[in-house]
């Protein structure tokens, strides 16, 4: 049971490039989330999903897209990367409402220059 896995661990992008951050969970969780953490700040929710085929915006969705075609995977797409997207990105998952605890992946550190 690997929990929540994220790839890559690190990435440097040039301004205007695009990339997909991968997230996979093997706990059969319904809910999945993407957060970003900027230096000295808390985690901010980008997008979340309550099940396959269902996604919704969080607090800071601009510049990102998501899809949820399977229960296990929840990729985050960055189009036209900007320096403001330099951050550490965390994916998380949880069961349905009965379980509040979110299980986090190890994060992806992204630098846009």
């Amino acid at each position, binding site marked *: 049971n690997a929990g929540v896995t994220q790839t890559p661990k690190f990435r440097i992008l040039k301004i205007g490039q695009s990339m997909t951050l991968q997230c996979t969970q093997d706990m059969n969780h319904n*809910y999945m989330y993407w957060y970003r953490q900027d230096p000295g700040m*808390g985690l901010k929710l980008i997008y979340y999903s309550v099940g396959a085929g269902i996604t919704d915006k969080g607090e800071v969705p601009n510049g990102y897209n998501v899809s949820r075609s399977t229960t296990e995977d929840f990729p985050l797409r960055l189009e036209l990367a900007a320096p403001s997207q330099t951050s550490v990105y965390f994916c998380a998952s949880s069961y349905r409402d009965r379980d509040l605890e*979110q299980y986090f992946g190890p994060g992806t550190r992204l630098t846009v220059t």
Partner: protein
Amino acid sequence: DQQVKQNSPSLSVQEGRISILNCDYTNSMFDYFLWYKKYPAEGPTFLISISSIKDKNEDGRFTVFLNKSAKHLSLHIVPSQPGDSAVYFCAAKVGGGGNKLTFGTGTQLKVEL
């Protein structure tokens, strides 16, 4: 608008003593509060939670207190151990679908020998 605030960026405590981490919130619609612990280069891990209908929840060395009238919660760690050195995030959830969490900015706890 920071709905969950942790006003102390850092806290230093001696091993064996009590650590008290504080958190304030502004949204009276929050119905659950959680504490997460984060080590460097890892994702946050769930520590303890409390429902808004309770004023205390205890789990081993960790106790969370909630004062709804003051919109304040605190995490007590007794006794503190060097392995407790980490960043602690307070998070809160509004009732409803999605289990979306709002995080504070974190407090870096250092437990010294």
